[in-house]
């Protein structure tokens, strides 16, 4: 007999988990990328 409850738990946690984690990484990369580009730009201006 299919264990529907466990199946749904695994599916929902797994599918949403991978989106949340990779979404957070994406956001961090974007923020970090912007910060770095501005920082490097300032250094270039300073030079």
């Amino acid at each position, binding site marked *: 007999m299919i264990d529907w409850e*466990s199946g749904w738990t*695994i599916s929902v946690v797994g*599918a949403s988990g991978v989106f*949340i*984690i*990779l*979404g957070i*990484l994406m956001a*961090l990369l974007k923020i*970090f990328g912007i910060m770095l580009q501005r920082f490097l730009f300032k250094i270039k201006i300073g030079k």
Partner: protein
Amino acid sequence: MPDFSLQLILSKTGFLNLTFGNIVMIVAGLLFIYLAIVEKMEPYELLPIGCGIILANLPLTRMMTFSDEVQGSGLLGVFFHYGLYFCNIMPPLIFLGLGVMTDFSPLIADPKTLLFGAAAQIGIFISFWGALLLGFTIPEACSIGIIGGADGPTTIFTTTILAPHLLGITAVTAYSYMAVVALIQPPIMRLLTTEEERKIVMKQLRPVSKLEKLIFPLMGMIVILLFVPFSAPLIGMFMLGNLFKESGVVKRLADSAENELMNIVTIFLMLCIGASMSAEVFLRLKTLYILALGIVAFGAGTAGGILLAKLMNLFSKEKVNPLIGSAGVSAVPMAARVSQKLGQEANKQNFLLMHALGANVAGVIGSAIIAGIFLSILT
């Protein structure tokens, strides 16, 4: 005095102990070797797997035997027991080498490709439910579903823990379908995209600084493992390998991880995988189910990535070529090459390879995360 009767001598040869199942499996092993040598399909994996199948199915070789008695274990039995079943160290060691070989630059330059790596994992869950409906248990269904991650070491790592009796067939299914990803994906990609969408030209990726390349593996490792500690053997080794390469200060370690270590582990891992495919395990109806679910997983993963790209195009000013979404299924770098090839067919000015590689690498990370989630729920 020892008995030298002809009957006894013959009984100690393979001839009298050969079964029909053994013969079928030996032919299957020969087929894998043929595919590796003649068709050049994943030769580094399929060649030792084919030899492993033959070795395990030749009677009385005892190659896969494992015992505590002195001289009681076979060569592959020892590797299988300590390298996989008992400690499961071989897949993470492969990930260490893969980390060295991976370039995160496309992913860092275009972070939204991470989402394709998540969307393409939908195939895992579709085949997971397919397996449940076909009567597999939940751990077995997770092991079958993870084939959709299109990542051999992740499939082996997960199956070894959750359903070791399915190890041979899930690993072989994953590697076999990865080898023919160029045949599986294009029809689905053409079906789900219009000619206009395939023609979309994506702008060249920005250059990525060394600092970004150094920070990403550390940041990725910390963030992912805080959420899913059970992914540590895979993600930890993957990011460590990448840090070896990007740091530029441990060239010998990077070289060893990428070449000697990875090659040695690949030999024994693949031999063990092949040798775990005995006739009793392989020649069952469930094998056909797993083969079918594997291809469903690959197809659904391909579709998932493409559909997310199309969805993003509805809301974003900067259009994404949906062909890069299919590369989120991992299968590095074949899936990215397929995206590039189809993009160029539609528009000669289209260079999608780097964008698709970003999705490709994200797929590797995504499938390792899901493996960790499965393990954290079920163990």
